[in-house]
C-alpha cells in the first residue's frame, strides 16, 4: 500500500511499511517499544508505542496498518501522560534494584525511564518474588526482572523453533516459564542465548563466569592460554563506543595479556583445522556415497537441537569437533610436555560470541581423563566486563598480535563467524585440491549474505556437489524436513543456530538488528580479503601440525561418541 500520513502536523509518505510505528520511525521519531521487533510476529503488549488520532482515539501504532490520509499525534500531553502511566505500572511490578543488576547501563527499561523523566513511582511495589533459575550452563533467568513483553517466547518459538518458554497462567499471575515450571536445564533449551540477546531487561542474562577467570589468572600454579573466536573481534568494540564491525583484535590480545593470560591464540586456527578434517571426512563420504548430506558440527546449539529433534541425523552430522574443542584438545596436547617440565597446569580459556559454547565445553566427550579440553568459556559481553573491571582503557591499548606456534590463520578460518563462512572455507579447500573447478566468485556470492537458505553448486571430479547454508534453527528444521521428504537433496549443509551466524551469537553485545549483523559480517569479510593466506591448507602452521603433533593422532579432531 502507498499513501501519505500526517504525523505531528508533518506530511509523511509511506510505501511498504508494515505498520504505523514504522512510518513514525521513518519520519525520524523514535517511539519507544519493548515488544516490537520487525523480525518477530506482532504482539502489541507493551503499549509504549501508543499514538493519538485526530478524533482523540488512542491505539498501539505497532499493530495498526497505515492508511492514506491518516492523521496522528505522537507527543500530545494526553499521550505522554498515558505512556508514562504505563511505564510506571511496569516499574511498580519490577525488581528495581538496578545497582546490582548486570543489565544496568544497557537496559531498555532503564533507558525509557530516563527518557520519559520517571522521577517517582506512586504505587507500592507489587512484585511477587520468584526464584532465579541458575540451572542452565548458558543463561540465568530472573523472573523478577521480567516485564512480560514476550520477546524471548517469540524468539525461541518463531526464529529458533525450540519453544522452551511460554506465557503461563493469566492476569496478575501471568509469568514466563518453561513447561510445567521446570528449570531451563530440564527442558529442550539448546543454550543459543537468543532469548538473552533480545531481552530488553535483566530477566535473561549470560551465565557470568568472570570470577572463575580472575581465579585462574591469579593462580600461580596455572598457565593460562586463551583462544579468541572470529566474531568477537568485530563486536566487542561496540561496548566501548566503536561502530559495529570495527576490528579490535589487536587490543583484545593486549587486554588479555594485561589481565594475566600468558599466550593468546586465534580460534580461526582451530577453524582451519576443522576445514581440513571436515573436507577429508566429506571426500571420504562422497566416495563411499554414505551419510550424505554432511551436516556441519561447528555450532553446538544446532548439534543439541538435532539431538533433540532429529536423532536420525546422528551419522550425517560431521564427527569433527567444533573449532573451539578441536583447538582446545590440540592446545592441551601441545602443552603436556611443558607442563611436565615446569610443573604448571595449562588451562585453556576461550573467548566466544556464543552462550552454547559454555555448555559444549562441559560435555562429557570433551573431558579427557577428568581434564576439560576447554576449561572456561567467556562470551564477548563478559570480556567487555572483565576489561572494564580491570580498569583498562580499551581505546588506548596498543595492538598486539597472536602468539606462535598457532599464530597464523587463513582468511577462510576467519569467516567461520558468519553464516556461510564454514561452507565457503570448505569449498575453498575442496576447490584448491581439485583445481578444475571454476566460477569461485559466483559460488561464494551465493553462500554469503542474510538470506534464510542459501544454495550453491560446484563440480568436483565431474560430479555435481550441492551445498546449502541455513541459519536460524526454525529455518534449519524446515530444511531438514524437506531433505527427509526428498524434496531437496544436498551433499553439504551448513547450519548455524543464530540468525546471521556467530556474529549475532547469544553472547554478543546487545541490542542487535539486521543492520548490525551485516556490519559485523562485513568486518569479518574485510579480514578475509586482506588475509595473506587464503585457504586453510595453505596455512604452513597447519601443515607443521599435521606433520608433527598430530602425525599419528587425527583422533583428537573428532568426537569420540560411545555408541551402545
Amino acid at each position: 500500500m502507498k499513501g501519505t500520513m500526517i504525523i505531528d502536523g508533518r506530511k509523511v509518505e509511506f510505501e511498504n511499511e508494515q505498520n504505523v510505528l514504522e512510518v513514525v520511525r521513518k519520519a525520524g521519531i523514535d517511539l519507544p517499544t519493548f515488544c516490537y521487533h520487525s523480525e518477530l510476529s506482532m504482539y502489541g503488549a507493551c503499549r509504549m508505542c501508543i499514538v493519538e488520532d485526530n478524533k482523540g482515539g488512542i491505539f498501539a501504532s505497532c499493530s495498526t496498518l497505515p492508511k492514506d490520509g491518516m492523521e496522528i499525534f505522537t507527543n500530545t500531553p494526553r499521550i505522554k501522560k498515558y505512556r508514562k502511566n504505563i511505564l510506571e505500572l511496569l516499574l511498580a511490578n519490577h525488581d528495581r534494584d538496578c545497582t546490582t543488576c548486570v543489565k544496568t547501563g544497557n537496559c531498555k527499561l532503564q533507558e525509557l525511564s530516563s527518557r520519559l523523566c520517571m522521577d517517582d513511582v506512586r504505587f507500592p511495589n507489587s512484585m511477587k518474588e520468584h526464584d532465579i533459575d541458575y540451572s542452565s550452563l548458558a543463561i540465568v533467568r530472573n523472573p523478577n526482572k521480567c516485564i512480560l513483553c514476550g520477546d524471548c517466547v517469540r524468539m525461541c518459538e518463531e526464529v529458533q523453533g525450540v519453544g522452551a518458554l511460554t506465557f503461563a497462567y493469566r492476569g496478575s499471575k501471568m509469568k514466563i516459564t518453561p513447561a510445567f515450571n521446570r528449570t531451563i536445564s530440564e527442558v529442550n533449551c539448546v543454550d543459543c542465548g537468543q532469548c538473552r540477546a533480545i531481552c530488553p531487561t535483566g530477566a535473561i542474562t549470560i551465565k557470568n563466569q568472570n570470577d572463575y577467570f580472575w581465579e585462574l589468572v591469579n593462580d600461580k600454579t596455572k598457565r593460562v592460554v586463551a583462544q579468541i573466536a572470529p566474531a568477537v573481534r568485530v563486536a566487542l568494540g561496540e561496548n566501548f563506543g566503536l561502530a559495529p564491525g570495527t576490528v579490535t583484535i589487536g587490543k583484545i590480545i593486549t587486554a588479555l595479556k594485561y589481565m594475566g593470560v600468558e599466550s593468546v591464540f586465534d580460534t580461526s586456527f582451530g577453524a582451519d583445522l576443522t576445514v581440513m578434517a571436515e573436507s577429508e571426512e566429506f571426500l571420504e563420504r562422497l566416495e563411499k556415497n554414505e551419510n550424505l548430506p554432511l551436516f556441519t558440527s561447528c555450532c553446538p546449539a544446532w548439534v543439541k537441537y538435532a539431538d533433540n529433534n532429529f536423532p536420525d541425523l546422528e551419522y550425517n552430522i560431521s564427527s569433527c569437533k567444533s573449532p573451539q574443542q578441536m583447538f582446545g584438545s590440540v592446545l592441551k596436547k601441545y602443552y603436556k610436555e611443558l607442563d611436565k617440565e615446569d610443573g604448571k597446569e595449562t588451562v585453556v580459556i576461550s573467548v566466544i560470541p556464543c552462550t552454547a559454547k559454555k555448555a559444549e565445553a562441559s560435555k562429557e566427550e570433551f573431558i579427557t581423563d577428568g581434564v576439560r579440553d576447554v576449561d572456561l568459556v567467556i562470551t564477548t559481553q563478559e570480556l567487555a566486563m572483565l576489561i572494564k573491571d580491570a580498569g583498562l582503557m580499551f581505546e588506548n591499548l596498543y595492538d598486539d598480535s597472536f602468539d606462535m606456534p598457532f599464530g597464523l590463520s587463513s582468511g577462510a578460518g576467519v569467516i567461520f563467524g558468519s553464516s556461510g563462512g564454514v561452507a565457503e572455507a570448505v569449498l575453498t579447500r575442496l576447490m584448491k585440491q581439485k583445481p578444475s573447478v571454476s566460477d569461485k566468485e559466483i559460488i561464494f556470492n551465493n553462500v554469503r549474505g542474510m538470506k534464510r537458505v542459501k544454495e550453491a553448486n560446484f563440480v568436483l571430479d565431474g560430479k555435481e556437489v550441492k551445498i546449502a547454508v541455513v541459519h536460524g534453527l526454525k529455518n534449519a528444521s524446515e530444511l531438514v524436513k524437506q531433505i527427509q521428504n526428498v524434496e531437496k537433496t544436498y551433499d553439504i549443509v551448513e547450519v548455524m543456530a543464530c540468525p546471521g551466524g556467530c556474529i549475532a551469537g547469544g553472547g554478543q553485545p546487545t541490542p542487535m538488528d539486521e543492520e548490525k549483523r551485516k556490519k559485523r559480517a562485513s568486518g569479518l569479510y574485510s579480514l578475509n580479503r586482506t588475509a595473506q593466506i587464503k585457504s586453510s591448507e595453505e596455512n604452513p602452521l597447519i601443515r607443521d601440525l599435521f606433520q608433527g603433533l598430530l602425525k599419528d593422532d587425527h583422533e583428537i579432531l573428532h568426537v569420540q561418541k560411545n555408541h551402545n
Partner: protein
Amino acid sequence: MYSINEIDEIISSHGNDQSSIIAILHDVQSKYNYIPEDCLEYISNKLDISPTKAFGIVTFYENFSLEPKGRYIIKICDGTACHVRKSTPILEALKKELKLTDGKKTTDDLMFTLETVSCLGACGLAPVITINDKVYGKMTPEHVVELLNSLKEEK
C-alpha cells in the same frame, strides 16, 4: 491413573486435530477430574504441539487442573449477590471443616476440592454452592457442615 488407550480414543474422537486441543483437554479433565502432567505431554506430542505451549493453554484456563481434584468438587459463589448475603462465613466454615487453605484446595484423601467462583447465575438463591454441579441454595455455615457430613457418610 489414566490409560493411554482412553487418551488415544479421546484424541481420535476429535480427529487428531491440533486445533481441537481445548476440547480434548476438556474431555480428559472431565474423565479424570484433572490432567496429569505426563498425560499432557503425551497429548501434545500426539498433536505435534510443544509441551510448553500446551502448558500455557492449561494454566490459562481456570477449569483445567494439573493437580488431582477430589471426588466432590464444591464451588462456592462469591459473586456480588452471594457476597452480600454472607458467603464468606460459609467459605470459612468449609475451609475449617475440610482443613483447607487458600493455597491448598483439595483434601488429602482426595474426597473434596473447594473452589471459589465469581457467579453461578443463581443469584435468587444466594448464597449458593454447587457440589458436582448440583445446586444448593440459601446456604448457611451450619447447613453446609451438615451437607458435608452426609456426603462423607455416603462413601
